[in-house]
């Protein structure tokens, strides 16, 4: 039987549009965009064209798009680059160490960067997110009144698909004069993003989550003085991310963005139907799952389920052996099984410790027949794991 890949939030296949755009840059001379000769000019033209197209797709201007090597790097630049900028600018006397605020369900790229700024002397605190994906506005205002140097909130959560109210948070930040970084890695190409209408100061994007190439991302930065670079070199990307420009990556990124955004509405409906198909079928499993984020607005490509009293470390492996590729959430790099900080943030530590999480995620190449074939396999596997009673 052909194995079924349902882990698109972890990695999704390269879209044919991206591959076609990249192809000329993977063969023959692919010049350095900073070179003065014809190969350099051609590379620069394509790199800057890609930048313009990505900017246009998200309502930004091209000078605001800083190419990076991926979502983690973008988020780290936003957080650690912000700390450096604050450190090197004159601070108000008596203001104490700078404060960073981030939501309780951030991806590890933000969470760990926050732990690092704390280790370097900053203060950090979290903004709670409810199981419906809501943020308590009074709490938000209270935190903003403490004049943090950065608030970091994700747009779409990677384990539940929950959509956070970025429009409202952005408006509050703007009123309070607090810079806002939004991790849009799972939102890019899934939700309408218009930076011309939403006052976001920094937006993290990843190419490969949209069907572009791996190792490519962007940080959209509205106000460069908010950041100091983390790398130093040839001054590329306005000095914020030096290094030889990746033309193939950029044109693949642009093509993937455009393809995702063009088909966003119909693709969203299609994936939402498939997600509902899975959700309805698996809700009838012998161990009825909790649908993570089920009480709030969700992006259509992620289905997070929690199976009470099943061992936390077995389901993805058992499903792998049965031919279905899914994950438990964002795993620690050892493949270890510490409780998910996202589920801890949403439902509490006791829940996260006693529930087996399963994340099923769909992508552009997912077909209805794959989903229909996967359902009985997942149900059988759940039944076997339950009956063994580990």
């Amino acid at each position, binding site marked *: 039987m052909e194995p079924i890949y349902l882990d698109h939030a972890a990695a999704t296949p390269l879209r044919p549009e991206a591959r076609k755009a990249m192809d000329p840059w993977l063969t023959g001379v692919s010049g350095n965009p900073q070179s003065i000769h014809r190969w350099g000019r051609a590379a620069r033209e394509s790199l800057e064209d890609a930048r313009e197209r990505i900017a246009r797709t998200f309502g930004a201007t091209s000078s605001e798009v800083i190419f990076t090597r991926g979502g983690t790097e973008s988020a780290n630049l936003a957080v650690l680059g912000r700390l450096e900028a604050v450190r090197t600018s004159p601070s108000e006397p008596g203001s104490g160490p700078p404060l960073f605020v981030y939501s309780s369900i951030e991806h590890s790229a933000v969470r760990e960067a926050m732990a690092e700024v704390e280790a370097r002397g900053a203060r950090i605190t979290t903004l709670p997110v409810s199981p419906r994906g809501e943020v308590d506005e009074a709490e938000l205002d209270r935190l903003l009144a403490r004049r943090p140097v950065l608030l970091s909130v994700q747009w779409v959560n990677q384990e539940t698909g929950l959509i956070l109210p970025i429009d409202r948070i952005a408006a509050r930040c703007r009123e309070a004069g607090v810079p806002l970084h939004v991790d849009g890695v799972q939102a890019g190409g899934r939700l309408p993003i218009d930076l011309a209408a939403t006052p976001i100061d920094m937006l993290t994007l990843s190419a490969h989550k949209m069907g572009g190439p791996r190792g490519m991302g962007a940080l959209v930065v509205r106000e460069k003085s908010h950041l100091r670079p983390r790398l130093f070199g040839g001054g590329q990307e306005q000095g914020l991310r030096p290094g030889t420009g990746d033309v193939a990556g950029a044109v693949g990124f642009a093509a993937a963005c455009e393809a995702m955004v063009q088909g966003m509405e119909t693709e969203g409906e299609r994936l939402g139907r498939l997600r509902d198909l899975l959700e309805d079928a698996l809700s009838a499993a012998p161990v009825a799952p909790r649908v993570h984020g089920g009480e709030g607005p969700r992006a259509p490509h992620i289905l997070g389920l929690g199976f009470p009293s099943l*061992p*936390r*470390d*077995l389901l*993805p*492996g*058992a499903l*792998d*052996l*049965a031919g279905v590729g899914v994950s438990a959430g964002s795993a*620690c*790099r*050892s*493949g*270890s*099984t510490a409780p998910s900080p996202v589920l801890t943030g949403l439902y509490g530590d006791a829940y996260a410790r006693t529930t087996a999480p399963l994340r099923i995620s769909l992508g552009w190449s997912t077909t209805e027949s794959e989903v229909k074939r996967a359902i009985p396999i997942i149900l059988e596997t759940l039944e*076997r*794991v339950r009956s*063994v*009673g*580990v």
Partner: protein
Amino acid sequence: MSHFTKQRILVAMSGGVDSSVAAALLHEAGHEVVGVTMKTFCYEETPGHSKTCCGLDGILDAKRVADRLGIAHYVFDVEEDFTRDVIDDFVHEYAHGRTPNPCVRCNSNTKFRDLMQRGRALGCDGIATGHYVRAVRPEGTEVELHRGADRNKDQAYFLWGLPRELVRRLHFPLGDLTKPEVRELARARGLTTAEKPESQEICFVPLGDYRQLLRDRLPARHGALEPGSIVTRDGTVVGEHTGYAGFTVGQRKGLGGGFPDPFFVLEIRPAEREVVVGPREELFADGMRAGEVSWITSDPPRPGARVEVQIRHRAPAVPGTLQTESGAIQLHFDEPQLSVTPGQSAVIFDGSRLLGGGRIVRALHAAAATAAQ
């Protein structure tokens, strides 16, 4: 194997060379091999180990080998069970003046049971490890476990407490091999673990300082770590010690001035916080009593049976006569034996065949018993 039946077999991969080769051999034999690394405890707090994730090196090595072989590999988190069944027991035994054997405890209570259960959830028919033990499958009777062909590496001693119902599902692909052969097989396959050194210490005491572990896990000022007297059998105080948990029966204890002959630890009396010492002759025992008895075979030896017993890893098995009674083993050695250590395993063999064993409760002294009367 005369008729090959393809099975899905779970292989416990520690990230060492032995389990790497065990996985490779089963894979090459045509089985569907599923590699598993059990995360038993967290290195994070251990000085000298990089502050990374838990036991990361072993997990990464196991993954690397599994990926090279093209087999699945998963990590099972058994930290909770392992802490309760192995580490807590280890601390409890030292606190009571005994010398525990955590590897036996892990094999008996944690590793194989967890592997079997999780293996069933993964649809596996069998379990394999890189132990140097032979599983012999005679036609029509139960599976027998025998000592490994490499007598220097033989690990049958550690397996006496395996749940009997599991034995028929076990595979030990290294049983007929020697360690140098295993390394050679690893090299020939380009496995990253081929030259990895042996692990000697107890896995959860990576720096070998078990007293530090006891300090961390026992209540403050627990008697096992408080000063007490060193006494001889007749009650004479001959010295002081800094905690009886630092002693093991049979250990040589130099007392310095006035006592030119070496003394040996004969007994630990936790209630009095006393360590009893004496000359080497007094270390000999005529027999021993063991509890928590477990038999690998469904037909254990009966009272009066002639068996061989091994009372220490690396010691030869010695002949004796068995008396069993309701869950305990009492055994009379043919020749008096040195250092019967409470807490250690007494493992019963019939030639190379492992029959079962128990945890030593105490030494038996025919002469002392007579003298006391």
